[in-house]
């Protein structure tokens, strides 16, 4: 009788990295749909293009690193990264911008550090930060929501968008379909109070609903991930609560100079980051307590960068900074194990 010899446990939950990634992609669908609805076809085109590039770069790197292609391509991690880059970029970003972003994320931020599970920085955020610093014009040319571009649901036609992304476009096109984001308006409002800025800006006055809707869509996806236990609540909640509390505090003291908490929570990348970026397990803190600290610090940094920094939104920088701090956070946020009166702290050991 030849029976196999295995170590316990003998049963496993039907789970896999690919499954986790599929759930993340599924959870992104509402946000993607909302973006497409309010900002046009660009988002879908960017996603398709970025995913294609990501698979190509991933395959090339796996080949170079002599890893089994099918095994690693099947985990969908590259596609998730590509999707995150695609939804973070302006929907009308030129093809090469996306290409550079995906290249930086997959080749440099991921594979040069050892591939899946080894990257200290969130690949999508590395790409985003690099593009933001290198190509500020292209990166800040965000689409106007459809309510501002004409009557009814008037978004740029699909083939026009395709042409703009892959061929270039007349400035007229950009004039019609792009403009400042709400965060830009608030950041660069000059000497105006927030209320004055709010009244004067079209985007703020009429278009803000688009951002609210998109944020709500991301939140929906996030709740789905929480429900499916793909992510834990610690980092998102800590981040959102911190950002909300700090902005409330400043808004409460000085509403003329500071934006209200709802604005902070619903514009820019807040909701996307909360559930899809800072929850990236590889580059974030490990323990639940660690994630609380990690999320809270990101919320704090984002508020600082948005309020006093040079960039209208600071998620990429905040996340990268906290990625740097994650191993350190891990050292001091070990859980208290069963049977121990207090948690261990610090390095432990000599190595």
């Amino acid at each position, binding site marked *: *009788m*030849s*029976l*196999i*010899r*295995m*170590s*316990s*446990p*003998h*049963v*496993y*939950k039907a*789970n*896999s*990295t690919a*499954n*986790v990634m599929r759930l993340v992609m599924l959870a992104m669908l509402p946000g993607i749909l909302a973006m497409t609805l309010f900002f046009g076809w660009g988002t879908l085109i960017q996603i398709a293009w970025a995913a294609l590039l990501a698979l190509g770069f991933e395959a090339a790197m796996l080949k170079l690193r002599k890893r089994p292609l099918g*095994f690693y391509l099947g*985990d969908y*991690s590259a596609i998730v990264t590509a999707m995150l880059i695609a939804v973070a970029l302006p929907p009308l970003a030129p093809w090469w911008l996306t290409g550079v972003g995906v290249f930086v994320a997959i080749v440099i931020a991921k594979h040069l550090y050892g*591939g*899946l*599970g*080894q990257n200290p920085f969130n690949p999508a955020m590395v790409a985003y930060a690099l593009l933001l610093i290198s190509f500020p014009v292209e990166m800040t040319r965000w689409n106007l929501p459809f309510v501002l571009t004409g009557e009814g649901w008037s978004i740029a036609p699909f083939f026009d968008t395709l042409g703009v992304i892959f061929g270039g476009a007349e400035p007229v096109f950009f004039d019609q379909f792009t403009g400042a984001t709400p965060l830009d308006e608030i950041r660069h409002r000059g000497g105006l109070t927030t209320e004055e800025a709010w009244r004067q800006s079209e985007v703020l006055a009429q278009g803000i609903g688009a951002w609210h809707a998109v944020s709500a869509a991301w939140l929906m996806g996030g709740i789905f991930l929480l429900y499916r*236990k*793909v992510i*834990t609540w610690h980092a998102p909640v800590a981040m959102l609560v911190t950002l909300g509390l700090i902005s409330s505090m400043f808004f409460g003291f000085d509403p003329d100079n500071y934006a209200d908490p709802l604005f902070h929570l619903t514009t820019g990348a807040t909701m996307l980051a909360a559930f899809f970026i800072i929850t990236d*397990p*590889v580059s*974030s803190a*490990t*323990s*639940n307590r660690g*994630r609380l600290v990690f999320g809270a610090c990101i919320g704090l940094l984002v508020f600082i960068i948005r309020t006093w920094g040079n960039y209208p939104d600071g998620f990429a920088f905040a996340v990268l900074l906290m990625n740097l701090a994650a191993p350190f956070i*891990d050292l001091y946020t*070990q*859980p*208290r*194990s*069963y*049977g*121990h*009166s207090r948690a*261990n702290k*610090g*390095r*432990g*050991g*000599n*190595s």
Partner: protein
Amino acid sequence: MGKVFAFHGGIHPPENKKQSTRQPIGRVPLPRMLYVPLQQHIGMAASPLVEVGEKVLKGQLIAEPVGRISAALHAPTSGTIRSIGPHPVPHASGLDSDCICIETDGEERWAEHQGLGDYTQLERSQVIEHIRQCGIAGMGGAGFPTDVKLHLGDDHIVNTLIINAAECEPYITADDMLMRERAEEILGGIRVLNYLLKPSHIMIGIEDNKAHAIHTLEKVLKGCELNLDIRVVPTKYPSGGERQLIKLLTDIEVPSGKIPADIGIVCQNVGTMSAVYRAVHKGEPLISRVVTVTGDAVAQPQNFDTLIGTPFADLLDAAHVYENKLYRLVMGGPMMGVTVEHDQIPVIKTTNCIIAASQDEMPPAQQEQPCIRCGMCEQVCPAELLPQQLYWFAKGKEFDKAKHHNLFDCIECGACAYVCPSSIPLVQYYRFAKSEIRTEEAEQRKADHARQRFEARQARLEREKEEKEARRKARAEEAAKAQKARKTPEAEATAQAPDLASLKTAAAVARTKLKKAQKALDAARESGEGDISELEAAVATAQANADKAQQALEQADTAAAKPAAAEVDTKQLKTAAAVARTKLKKAQKALDAARESGEVDLATLEADVNTAQAAADKAQQALEQAQAGAAPAGDADVKQLKTAAAVARTKLKKARDALKNAESKGLDGLDKLRATVEALETKADAADKAYQNAEKAAGGSAPGEPKAAPVDMKALKQQVSIMRTKLKKAEAALEGLEGEERTQAEQALQELRQRHEEADKAFKAAEQAQIDAAAAKGVDLKQLKIDAAMARAAVTKLERSLSKTEEADARASLESELVAAKRKADALNETLKQHEPA
């Protein structure tokens, strides 16, 4: 029903318990062979009490516990011991272990056994000993001998007894079925434990998926006098883990590295309660247990009351196994059970379940993917560890960090591996890290021990060295003191001894002074100035001084020279003799050459030769005299004399040969040659005599010394034999001679004979002295015997040669020797006889 708390983590794997609870507990047909492993738990293996071929009865003790943590073994049924030796056992290592193999006889004849009756009338220790003798061991997990846990009441205050009925592992329903069917027994066991441990509170922890069992228990417990609660806990793996159940029921955590008894809690499994009941009330040892046989590869999953030692194959047959579907055979649950490789492995006291799984049911593990730190493992870890961190540390062999992250609090429940989306066999990583750390620590301990021993040894050696050094110093000091004490008179002695060098210097100084004084006097006389008389007096004094010094020097000189003089003399004389001989040789050669050529003045040459001869003789004589004088000094001289004698003899021989040659050839100058021969003969005699004298002196100088005697004897013997040879030769030579020569030769022969006799006499005398000495001392019977035998042999030898010899002279000498030999032999025999009786 009391409050139930929660523990961190946990998982909800598919339960798969329904399949095996449809049928009541069944029975397995009696197996033909039973294999009872001697060791079924940690601690010591039991020691067998039976021998191969012995008949045993059901319940008979077949192996007794060794040490505290050890359990007794009993024959599960009646039969014959077939072997005691290695057999595959259910253990994660897959290694064989010693088992007692019993061939069953089907009679199921019980050994005599009876319960304790009213155990409350007995001492607690007596009841516990009875439980120990019945081989009761924990039937839930590790098979820890129950009596050890029952003794916990001795040194711990046990206020809570927890009966573990959680049975949290999927598939297993053995405890569930036991509670459904034998709740009374379980309660009986709990009562025994209540008596032994006297807890203030008893709780039965049971998962809410066992409604039937809960209902039965509640029925049985109705009106129970014990302070006993049934606590239903939510179904969540691993709520049946001892520490997790304690947390669930009491909200207390067992401190890391401690046992529940340290916080006043004792846990027992329901199966064990039933076994305790049977042991105490019926006297039945633990020889059977309920085993769940389930899995997709059996047609009728069911629980069986199974004899310990039953091979899995019999159980699988009873449940109608599909051989072709069977892919993995697990003993225990799917989360912590171990796979077994073949079905002859026996059921042991802890075998609660056998899962015959098909490949679909328990497929081989997926290929390991990279860890993405998703943290799902952390969410389910019941020990609240960071499994993914431990994984990274184990993988990177950063064991210090792993320890710091409480690796050793891991209970290896497998929850982390169960949820891991990357299919990482996390538990194996932890097992690896744990064993590596244990090995490392063991080695560290060993190294520490070795280092301590080494240091102790170094210290000891150092101490010994120091002690030695101290002793040496003390000795040296003592020696120095003694030396000092001795040195003082010695130094005085040396100081008193005449110092030749200083005397010489003194004499020289005195002479120089005298010369100066003389010079001064002469100068004064010449110039006519100064006080001449005074100077004259000074010269006289100087003269006297110089004379005195000279005298002293001469005296000292002669005193010093005296011992050396003799040696120096002999040497000088020797050289002189050698020179004289060389001269003589040269002269003789010249003479011979002259004779051959017939030229030159023969007469002058002969005169030269004669002169040389005379000089050589003189030198030789002087040498001999000197040597004779020095002879008593020692052996060296005797040796020299011997050599001289031998040289003389050789010369004599040569001369004789030359003489013979000359005679046969009829050459002239025969006279001279003869004269030479004679002269040489005299010389040889003289040398011999000198040698003998010396030898005698040497022999006489140490008459009592045993060493000297044998040397003497040997030399004497040699002497005698040499004499004999010479005598014979001379006699032979005599035959060829005529007239005057003959008479001369005869004379020489006579002399030789005389000398021979003398030598012989000396030899015999020495021999006699030796024998007497031996007799006087009464030594060495052996030596005496040998000597006697030798003497007898010599006698026979002599007699034989006498019978062969016809010549009168030879006969005469032989006869005389024979007589001497006989005398000696007789003497030896007599001494021997004198000593032998003693």
